[in-house]
């Protein structure tokens, strides 16, 4: 009886060794790898891939947040965007904001070149310029909201003190979006700067030495050595700026609430209003799909025109 039991236990142990654990100890087994990659793969599929298709599905339905039934609409949500003046405003504003933020790229490149001259204090300068990148958008928005405040803000007080005309800044219809663009540039420069610095430090010094011997001045060096060699880095920086700026939300929500009127509506801002304040999730999904397509197209265009020699 006992011997039988022991034999049984032995076979069970052997079977456990054979089946489950063997999969992990045997380097040729694939199961262990699937277990490692499994959780993340599951998250990808449920949190990114499924919602991606689900968004497209929702966008062709009338989908109210609280409704139980969702009526099929076809492309109505998309045609609705074309006649929705608030959406058109949002789209135009988003494009302007995004293009405005690309100004941070030349500024960052200029500062990066200066910092790369390696004068004393370079590390301090780059660290200081990087501070706005680290601080969260909400904090940045609140502080700038106070700076821009037309009545008690520091900016108008400063302008008054030196005798320049003041402005309504974020409260003026025409000045609101440029004001936000300034904040955006201010917050983005540090990020671009660090990437440009990494790019500059990877350039081969011998090129510059040869150019110095040949008598090139610093502009020529920049134009004929730095610029071509930095093309992949610049391509990358522009891409990141475009893609992140295109889906900006926090400053528009916190500082201006999309206003005055629709002056600072952006796609994601309007998307939030429609989807979560009005609860029209089908229409919001259609906007999300447009956002997705635009971001996708930016990536493709960039890759076709600039990124031939960029390796991934």
């Amino acid at each position, binding site marked *: 009886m006992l011997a039988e039991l022991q034999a049984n236990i032995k076979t069970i142990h052997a079977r456990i060794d054979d089946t489950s654990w063997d999969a992990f100890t045997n380097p040729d087994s694939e199961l262990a790898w699937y277990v490692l990659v499994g959780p993340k793969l599951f998250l*990808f599929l449920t949190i990114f891939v499924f*919602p991606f298709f689900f968004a497209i599905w929702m966008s062709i339905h009338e989908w109210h947040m609280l409704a139980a039934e969702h009526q099929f609409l076809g492309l109505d949500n998309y045609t609705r965007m074309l006649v929705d003046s608030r959406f058109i405003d949002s789209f135009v504003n988003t494009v302007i904001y995004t293009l405005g933020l690309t100004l941070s790229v030349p500024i960052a490149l200029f500062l990066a070149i200066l910092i790369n001259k390696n004068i004393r204090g370079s590390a301090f300068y780059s660290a200081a310029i990087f501070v706005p990148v680290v601080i969260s958008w909400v904090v940045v928005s609140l502080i700038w909201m106070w700076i821009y405040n037309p009545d008690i*803000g520091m900016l108008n007080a400063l302008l008054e003190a030196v005798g320049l005309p003041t402005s309504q800044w974020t409260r003026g219809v025409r000045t609101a979006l440029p004001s936000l663009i300034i904040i955006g540039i201010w917050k983005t420069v540090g990020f671009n700067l*660090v*990437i440009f610095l990494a790019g500059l430090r990877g350039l081969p010094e011998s090129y510059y030495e040869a150019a110095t011997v040949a008598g090139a001045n610093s502009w020529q060096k920049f134009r004929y050595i730095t610029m071509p060699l930095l093309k992949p880095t610049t391509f990358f920086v522009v891409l990141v700026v475009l893609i992140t700026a295109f889906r900006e939300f*926090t400053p528009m929500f916190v500082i201006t609430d999309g206003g005055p009127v629709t002056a600072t509506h952006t796609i994601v801002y309007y998307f939030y209003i429609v989807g979560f304040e009005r609860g029209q999730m089908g229409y919001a999904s259609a906007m999300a799909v447009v956002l997705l397509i635009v971001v996708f197209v930016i990536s493709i265009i960039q890759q076709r025109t600039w990124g031939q020699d960029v390796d991934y």
Partner: protein
Amino acid sequence: MAARFNLESLPSWRIVAIHVILMTAAILAIAPFVYAFLTSIKPSPEILGAPLQPITPNPTIEHYITFWTEHPFDRWVLNSLILTTGAVFASLLLDSLAGFALAKGEFRGRYGIFLLVIGTFIIPPQAIMVPLFVQMGWIGWQNTYWGIMILIISAPFGVFLMRQFYLSISDSYLEAARMAGANTFQIYFKIILPMGKSALAALAIFKFIFMWGAFLWPLIIVDSGAMFPIPVGLGLFEGQYGDTPWGQVLAASLLTAAPVLVAYILAQEAFMKGIALQGGVKG
């Protein structure tokens, strides 16, 4: 360092000019925070009356105290700590596991899964928030910590980063460990995990900043003040008043920024690396 210029090659007036330009840029970057701090310790009448006066003769911490006592700021801080801890730990674990498998594993579908990782890069998180909100409703995760964390944890970037890093680890380590009879999990925990410390640290900082500052997704998924992370609490707090209490707003903003600023001052290089990671790997 390659491609750095020698000091001798620059005339001194140009060095001065460079200092002036860089100093201006640095001041422009930091001044708003410094000025916000100086204003947050002014009494209210001075904030309204004399915005330019830099240093107040009678500093006060009343705004900090009023804000903290009138709003559940401590709870928001705790919420943010919970979210950040959970999201950073879970991302590091899952990303390094998956990164390891994609870098060193040999299994069917490996290339397909890697393509999926690259593909999800293209999807802006904002574009999937509506369906994700509905999905979270299905499993009862609206208004939970897990619902907020999961979007940050699922981001594909970390897998890509860790895979790149593990590709640089020599296979000989793994072979030696196999010889000694280690299984895949032991190899992961005893070799791969400790060797990846630098990459993990950079990823941790990246995720930390991301989660600490996340705004839109928590705003969507959470609708009760008890579950707000700090940014949402702050962002909505400002809008509650017709007449904004600026002293409190600035005090609260600085309280929120303080931990990140302190961490940044202590580990600048790591922060820059962490955030610029995206640049380094050309995601």
